């Protein structure tokens, strides 16, 4: 018996978990007076180069703007700015549609807006596109938005009633299911991302030839030149009963 036990022990028998203890540790600067010089040195050359590009103030935000559903001040701002960019560049979208998940900061805070802010808001390399969509497919799209509980838009107003879209207005005119509409959106959504399948039935697609982030940067800088600051407000463009 003794020898057998010894044999088993020395052969390093398979183990199983007897117990576990866990702790999810918060990592902040006071979580230890610790620093790691080695890691700092690795970061430094990247940081210096990046800071020179990113820490450039391009405009000012008048208020805190939140990412929210069915509409949020931040989503409204992004879509309004993109509409302005398109119009300033000779395009005529009927409405703009972005995806809620594509906005990557929860709040744009009141105060200076830097190049960095826009990168963090819209880090993805998505392209800005114009799609022409039939009224029937637009209705499917609006119902999908309703089912998702809303999304960032501009040029469009609708109410979510029992998971479907109602009282739809485009450019302040009642939505006409027999008309085709031009939609300003991202290649991500145009390819059916975020379950926006209706967009895959586009009649025409026009590449605006700019990344969404770059369009935002250009237009936000232009607003500053025009003496305009960033003011995103909730105006009930999408509401839910």
């Amino acid at each position: 018996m003794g020898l057998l036990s010894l044999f088993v022990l020395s052969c390093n028998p398979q183990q199983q978990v007897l117990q576990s203890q866990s702790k999810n540790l918060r990592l902040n600067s006071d979580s230890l007076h610790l620093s790691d010089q080695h890691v700092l040195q690795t970061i430094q050359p990247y940081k210096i180069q990046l800071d020179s590009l990113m820490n450039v103030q391009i405009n000012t935000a008048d208020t805190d703007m939140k990412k929210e559903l069915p509409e949020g001040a931040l989503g409204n701002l992004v879509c309004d700015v993109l509409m302005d960019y398109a119009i300033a560049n000779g395009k005529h979208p009927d409405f703009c549609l972005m995806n809620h998940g594509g906005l990557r900061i929860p709040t744009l805070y009141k105060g200076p807006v830097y190049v960095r802010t826009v990168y963090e808001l819209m880090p993805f390399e998505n392209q800005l596109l114009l799609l022409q969509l039939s009224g029937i497919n637009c209705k499917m799209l609006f119902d999908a938005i309703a089912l998702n509980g809303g999304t960032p838009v501009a040029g469009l107003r609708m109410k979510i009633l029992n998971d479907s879209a109602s009282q739809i207005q485009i450019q302040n005119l009642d939505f006409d299911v027999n008309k085709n509409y031009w939609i300003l959106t991202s290649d991500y959504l145009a390819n059916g991302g975020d379950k926006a399948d209706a967009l895959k039935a586009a009649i025409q697609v026009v590449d605006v030839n700019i990344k969404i982030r770059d369009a935002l940067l250009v237009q936000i800088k232009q607003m500053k030149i025009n003496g305009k600051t960033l003011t995103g407000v909730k105006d009930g463009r999408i509401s839910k009963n």
Partner: protein
Amino acid sequence: MEELVKTKRRDFLKQTLSLSVFGMLANSPMRVLAKALPKKLTILHTNDWHSRIEPFPAIDKNYGGMGGAEVRAAVIKNIREKEGEILLLDAGDIFQGTPYFNFYGGELEFKLMTEMGYDCATLGNHDFDNGLDGFNKQLPHAGFSFVNANYDFSKTLLKDKILPYKIFKKKGLKIGVFGIGIELKGLVPDKLFGNTIYNDPVMIANQIALILKRDKKCDLVICLSHLGYKYNSSKVSDEVLASQTQNIDLIIGGHTHTFLPEPVIFKNLVNKNVIVNQVGWAGLQLGRIDFTFEPFINKNYSAQSSLIKFTNGEDAYMLMEG
């Protein structure tokens, strides 16, 4: 003499047979066994780092001053100094979220994780954001392994570069680590994941975990999952994975950016405990789980089909295993 014997006993526990014979001279083997210290291992983990190299800026009302690679590296170093060998893991979405990724493509993230001594990571959906090519280009900067078992990369340039699983030997323990990824279609643009084929997470996880526990005789089986903690739909999640599999001890999750106050224990297919943990995102937290082990007694792999009735009253589920 008593002091000497104690020292020798400790050495014996490091599995040297010659010294164990020496130990027998002073102690009966039974006494040695009774006093054998259980094996222990500390696991540290992160998920959804999203390129947050620096702490959040002070202006950020939720996370101002929190996170950052420097403090994480320091905390990890501190724990290593106390615990010796540890296992350091990441559950994916290392990439995307700050300009560091836009400008350097993940190079710095991989370099820093290498410096921190990461052992293994899995791929999240955002790790495809610069395409398979973009990920492949950064791989030389990663001094750690990537695992995923349910993406078939065999028709892509990542063929043989992502392992289905990897076995680590730490503190005399064998730890099998495998990766499970989320369905890419509809989440990641088609052109970015190319010919990557997505396979069913539950089926693959059961196959791999059985291999690791039964054939490879791992003491601990860990799944690095980027499925997400749970959903209000039938979509596969860590909750689903935990309850519909067996032979997994720990699921380290990601994707849903869930800050679990502490790990959650689920019952698996054969009513054994599975620990699920996830530590939010952005490197704001570091998960720590300290395991204590005992010899494996109940080798109930139940490789045959077993009929399990779900508690929610849905149809019985037949598990088919090879």
